């Protein structure tokens, strides 16, 4: 995105926006934490699969997940990478997912596949956006794909017809609608929770490493069906509050009681 103001119009049409912030100090800091954990396997993220065995992968993934989540003020670092665009797309009062997720997709790894899905069907807020940040150059099957808004609505409508025979058939039906996003290190994709997305088995020669985290407007509706699930408290935490919200919070539960 050449101009930040274009981001809003692009998002309105496509449900996502891509930008790069490789020069951010926070991006480098998170990258350094990942690199330190992967040091024993080499310094080139894209070739890391040559050293890591598949049965080691989950431990590596969990170690890095724990390390990046223990970075002091990781939420501020993340916001400093994507905040300028987030504020244009979501607004200035936001909640953030309480964990930072880590993905590593090595060539030929069939166990790390995240099939086509939409977060809103998993109980996330309709008003949520995912911030996805790449640490490698990835394209085609090594990257993630996004489905356009119109097709995402069609898939939602067709879901019940494919329940028993497998929604993987639905994925096959719309195979030509999967748009793999080409990314270079520092590329960030901010996309709506309503868009179908996912990844396939990485058939390229390089590993993809990325992180992701979710944001929503602080006051936007959440699903209440499962109160302990994807709601503020257990899944999101309030992150940016306006002065008026902070001030008003002093007046909560201060209504006079008449007898």
């Amino acid at each position, binding site marked *: 995105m050449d101009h930040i103001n274009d981001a809003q119009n692009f998002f309105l049409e496509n449900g996502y926006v891509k930008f790069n912030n490789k020069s951010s100090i926070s991006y480098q800091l998170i990258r350094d934490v990942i690199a330190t954990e992967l040091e024993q396997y080499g310094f080139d993220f894209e070739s890391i699969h040559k050293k890591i065995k598949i049965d080691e992968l989950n431990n590596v993934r969990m170690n890095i997940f724990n390390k990046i989540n223990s970075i002091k003020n990781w939420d501020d670092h993340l916001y400093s990478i994507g905040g300028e665009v987030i504020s244009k797309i979501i607004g200035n009062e936001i909640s953030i997912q309480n964990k930072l997720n880590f993905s590593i997709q090595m060539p030929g790894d069939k166990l790390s596949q995240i099939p086509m899905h939409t977060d809103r069907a*998993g109980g996330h807020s309709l008003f949520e956006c995912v911030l996805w940040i790449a640490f490698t150059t990835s394209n085609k099957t090594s990257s993630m794909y996004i489905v356009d808004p119109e097709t995402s609505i069609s898939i939602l409508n067709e*879901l019940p017809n494919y*329940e*028993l*025979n*497998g929604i993987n058939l639905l994925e096959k039906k719309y195979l030509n609608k999967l748009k793999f996003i080409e990314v270079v290190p520092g590329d960030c994709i901010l996309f709506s929770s309503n868009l179908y997305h996912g990844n396939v088995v990485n058939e390229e020669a390089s590993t993809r490493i990325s992180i992701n985290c979710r944001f929503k407007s602080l006051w936007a509706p959440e699903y209440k069906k*499962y109160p302990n699930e994807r709601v503020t408290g257990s899944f999101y935490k309030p992150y940016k509050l306006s002065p008026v919200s902070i001030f008003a919070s002093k007046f909560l539960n201060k209504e006079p009681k008449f007898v």
Partner: protein
Amino acid sequence: MMPAPAQNTCMRDYARVNGFNFRLSVLELMYDNCYAQLFRLINEMPSNSNICLYSILLLPLGRALKLQECLKLLISKNIKSHFIFEKIVTQDYIEVQSYLASIEFSSQILNENLNDIQDVFNSLLK
């Protein structure tokens, strides 16, 4: 039902203790009576493999046709099911069916008892 992250932790630990390779867990869609992710998972699983569910109650309980279809798939693929909460590891799906039937039966008794109690109250209030 226990929150999904806690279920996930139980399954990860179960896999570790029992020497299984843990792959990413699958979360069911939020819609009522929807078992799309469960069917997808079973449809994609190879024969003679293992499936782990936090509870037997995650099967299509109260949806007879979907339950039959699900059990038919598990039997045809010779899949072993691990239900962590109930501590059931089985390929005997007649056992699973009878277990589920007993759960439904007890829930019906409970409902009927509540109705009975409500009837008693209603008669007292007349």
